[in-house]
């Protein structure tokens, strides 16, 4: 293992970022050294796999599944000589998240290194990096980076850049595979990508941030990785901080850092906070009093029924209406569902309708009971976990905004309902929100 360029401090992933734009190959190599050479023997491969397992790197696409376990599943699937593929998931369909496109735009070589190493680990025939059709700046950074490293990558399997429709569901792994085959973003039932992936072959589908971490673990090792983080969740994680923060943007934080420390690093809250949305649109609301106590560690969050999910932290100020925000999100989630499964197709619009009616005071006190009933009817009843995420968001809103709900049941819309949305959903989302300054702020250690 190479001697780490950085000690047990942040930034790690974001070490190479600058105001000048994407980190070029030369600067990237000066910082982290060249990409380790291809693995030559089974022994070398086993050693690196063990290292990844020891690092306990978990997927950053939302589910926090251990990468090593997934790599082993891909290796164990299919015929020994079956061609295997890597699909790097840079779709980032959740409009509340900007960390993946920020990473790809500023540090394309780190992501591409990760893709190459993952390919080494499974003996891949090729790799595809999938990216949302509207992420133009990330796309051009990656295109340039691929040209820049064409010589250095000789002898390695090709990495192809493919754009996918700019939809929430595009990032779901089987929907993504369908997109890569030229189809529409529709998830499928059963047969996970490690069994039937790209071209029907065993495939690793990993989030681009996960792969960027892999690029560093392959260089510096598991012990280095674990020098940061909480006991349960080693390393660092990228988060997108939105809403009422003085400096919203993408930050790299140590796992287990208090949310309060992140908000401080972002210049503090811009207004008194009512609640925080943790994990993105498939995440959950947490009351500001509880938010003051949470640490950004998936294991600790899961004990509170929360998770880091896609890494979004949306700060809701007191003057906004959390219920109106949630109503827009639920409508968005209903519209973005693939419409393949009965409970999801019927349940999500029913939830969005009932939520809006409750907000307007048309349902009286019975609205929230009906909403809980509907949440139970969609939960874990789809081919993918899209309805589960929507149920999570809904339940958390009913719990955290119970006070407001009662008020709305009696009085209808509140002044906050009319205000400018805190979270801009498509198509209003401003790509400018990918603040470089925010990312640079994240260079600080947040312990």
């Amino acid at each position, binding site marked *: 293992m190479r001697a780490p360029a950085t000690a047990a401090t942040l930034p790690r992933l974001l070490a190479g970022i600058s105001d000048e734009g994407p980190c070029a190959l030369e600067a990237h190599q000066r910082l982290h050294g060249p990409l380790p050479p291809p693995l030559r023997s089974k022994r070398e491969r086993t050693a690196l796999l063990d290292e990844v397992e020891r690092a306990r790197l978990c997927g950053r696409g939302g589910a926090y*599944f251990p990468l090593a376990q997934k790599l082993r599943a891909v290796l164990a699937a299919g015929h020994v000589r079956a061609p295997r593929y890597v699909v790097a998931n840079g779709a980032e369909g959740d409009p509340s998240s900007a960390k993946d496109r920020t990473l790809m735009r500023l540090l394309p070589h780190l992501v591409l290194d990760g893709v190459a190493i993952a390919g080494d680990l499974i003996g891949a025939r090729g790799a595809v990096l999938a990216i949302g059709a509207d992420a133009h700046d990330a796309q051009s950074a990656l295109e340039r980076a691929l040209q820049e490293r064409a010589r250095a990558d000789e002898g390695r399997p090709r990495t192809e850049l493919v754009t996918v429709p700019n939809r929430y569901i595009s990032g*779901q792994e089987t929907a993504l595979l369908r997109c890569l085959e030229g189809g529409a973003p529709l998830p*499928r039932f059963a047969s*996970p990508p490690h069994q039937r992936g790209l071209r029907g072959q065993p495939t690793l589908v990993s989030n681009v941030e996960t792969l960027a971490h892999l690029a560093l673990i392959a260089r510096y090792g598991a012990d280095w990785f674990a020098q940061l983080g909480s006991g349960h969740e080693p390393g660092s994680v990228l988060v997108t901080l939105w809403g009422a923060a003085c400096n919203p943007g993408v930050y790299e934080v140590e796992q287990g850092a208090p949310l309060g420390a992140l908000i401080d690093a972002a210049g503090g809250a811009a207004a008194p906070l009512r609640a925080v949305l943790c994990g993105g649109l498939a995440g959950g609301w947490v009351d500001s009093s509880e938010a003051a106590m949470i640490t950004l560690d998936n294991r600790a969050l899961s004990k509170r029924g929360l998770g880091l999910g896609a890494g979004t932290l949306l700060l809701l100020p007191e003057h906004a209406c959390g219920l109106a925000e949630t109503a827009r999100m639920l409508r968005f989630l209903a519209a973005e569902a693939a419409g393949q499964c009965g*409970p999801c197709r019927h349940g999500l619009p029913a939830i969005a309708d009932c939520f809006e009616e409750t907000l307007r005071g048309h349902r009286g006190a019975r609205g929230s009971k009906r909403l809980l009933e509907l949440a139970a*009817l969609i939960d874990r009843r789809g*081919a993918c976990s899209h309805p589960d995420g929507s149920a999570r968001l809904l339940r958390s809103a009913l719990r955290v905004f119970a006070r407001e709900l009662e008020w709305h049941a009696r009085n209808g819309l509140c002044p906050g309902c009319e205000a400018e949305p805190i979270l801009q959903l498509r198509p209003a989302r401003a790509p400018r929100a990918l603040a470089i300054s925010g990312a640079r702020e994240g260079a600080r250690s947040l312990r």
Partner: protein
Amino acid sequence: MSKQRLIVDPISCDAHGICAELLPELIATDEWGYPLLSEQHVPAELLALARQAVRSCPRRALLLAAQREKRA
């Protein structure tokens, strides 16, 4: 023999409801007509009926599986 449970492919299922008629012990229907399956293992005495329900589904959407499918 391993324990089995009922699962439904929600993409293929189009709420025919035949399964719930055949096996009300383990299958109810929701307000839209889609099956709500018992999460328990199919008890031995109902296994034959469960197999019949699986065969009778016009969409081949009902399945007996050794374990629950993992979704992402």
